[in-house]
């Protein structure tokens, strides 16, 4: 199971890096979504996989039985998903605004904040 997840994470990261390097802001955002899910899966996997033992406490007991799944990585992943969702919503809106304001979301053409120095007039 760990091997399968590790390969999935690798594939997600590879696809994400490809998308992020493509120079188009929308693809960059998609890449970001993929790589953040890869990060979430990493936390999940690194927290050890346990099959069929949910961390439930029986009525009357005050601790779960031995060998249950670790609930902490799931809490971390949940937090990361919520925060990530907010950030992506912002990022998508920003890209949309950039499309409206700059007229392009090709990274190479976005030079408003850092214009090329004026070229000297040809002699």
């Amino acid at each position, binding site marked *: 199971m760990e091997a399968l997840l590790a390969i999935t994470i690798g594939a997600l990261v590879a696809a994400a890096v490809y998308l*992020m390097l493509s120079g188009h*802001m929308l693809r*960059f955002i998609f890449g*970001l979504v993929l*790589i*953040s899910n*890869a*990060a*979430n899966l*990493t*936390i*999940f*996997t*690194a*927290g*050890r996989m346990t099959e069929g033992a949910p961390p439930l406490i029986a009525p009357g007991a005050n601790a779960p039985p031995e060998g249950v799944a670790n609930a*902490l*990585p799931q809490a*971390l992943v949940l*937090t*990361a998903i919520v*925060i990530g969702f*907010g*950030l992506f919503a*912002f*990022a998508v809106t*920003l*890209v949309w*605004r*950039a499309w409206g*304001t*700059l007229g392009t979301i090709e990274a190479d053409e*976005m*030079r*408003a*904040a*850092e214009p090329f120095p004026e070229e000297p007039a040809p002699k």
Partner: protein
Amino acid sequence: MSWVLVLPLAIPFATAILAFFYRASRAGRWISVAGTALLLAASLLLFTQVFQAGVVAGQMGSWPAPFGITLVADLLSAVMVLITAIIAVAVAIYALADIDEAAEKMGYHALFNVLIAGVLGAFLTGDLFNLYVWFEVMLIASFGLLVLKGGREAIDGGIKYVALNLVSTILFLTGIGLLYGITGTLNLADLSGSVAAADPGLLTIIAMAFMVAFGVKAALFPLFFWLPASYHTPHFAVSAVFAGLLTKVGVYALIRMFTLVFDHDIGFTHQILLWVAVLTMVVGVLGAAAQGDFRKILSFHIVSQIGYMVLGLALMTPLGLVGAVFYLIHHIVVKANLFLIAGVTSRIAGSTALKQIGGLYAFAPLLAFLFVIAAFSLAGFPPLSGFWAKFLIVKAALEIEAWIVAGAALAVGLMTIYSMTKIWAAAFWSPHPDGIEPRLSHFSVAERRAYLWPIAGLAAITVAIGLAPDAFVTFSERAAAQLLDPADYIAAVLGAGGTLE
């Protein structure tokens, strides 16, 4: 008592909520000023307590460490909180004049206070995942502030800032997941002990993930490109608080992680940091030399100065860390002040492009005087604060006979003087190209006060550090000693024995 730890976080959040409700009226700005003043009082309280009684720690919800979330302040955290509060007050007052009503209506004051809360949370937390959450609080507030101005430049700069910082955040998160995987804990004090049992090879790989993630935040070479792309685009008050605080959170996180947790293979990790620091100094200062805009020059100098602080950490000697702590204190004050001055310059002279301004020395001598204090301090002229900061770092490098490093640090200081004299010559000394007379009397009395008091106050701190360096060096020595031997920190968090029963 843990409430002294909670106050610096609760006050800015409460201020933000209040300021948000009153954003449409003038009350919002005064709420922000009052809130930051209250924050300064709370920070002083925390600082005094840590200064007198040592490390203060508190467990949120009374869950014992390492299971709950810990807030902890050692001397470094406490002084960073204090200096953040000082900058917050200065910028809140400055914003009275600098922030227009349109930005206020969109919630500038609320975002500003959330940003401050995020920065303070990052300084005070003793839990790695909680640090990630504070980073996100800080990040989302900074995103909002950055694009608040609107317009082509701000949106373009904002995109680059957002994109690169999100990548860094994800790397940070991955690092946290892996570190938890091999140690089973997220509490920093607990991690400090638990990593001893971990495979050093794996630990080094994870350390690299953290170094890159924090390296982006701190704007280290070669990860700094988002900074000069975005810091010259927002409101001046915003770029001042960014310049003063945000990259320093990255440096703080590096110092914390690479003294407390990742000190297992100093020969490898800190050697990388050392060369990265030297390249950061050199590349930053060269980038600044090529610029012709007040704020862009200052932005590249942030990068260059970050190199000095990380150099202090990379040397990992007692004196190196003293230098890093002293440099942090000095730099936050000076850098924020320079951006505030750039704002006033732009308002009275009409631009930040050096070619289009001038005449400030003739018509605004007070501003020129305040600029000289901040600029010469940045460049390292005695007896200003920057001289002592650079002196400590260079001496630390010479002590371990790192000649090239020390030489680079000195050469970068010289280059800094070049950039500062360039600004001086173009903006202050030479006459204005359009014949405008940039006088401070163009402002109303209220505006003039709001602009000049923060600048004068920060300049006074710079001079005070410069004239009485003893007290600050002694303090930095104590802070560095705590960093090098974190026994007090660990004991404060985990209880006297340092382990659980």
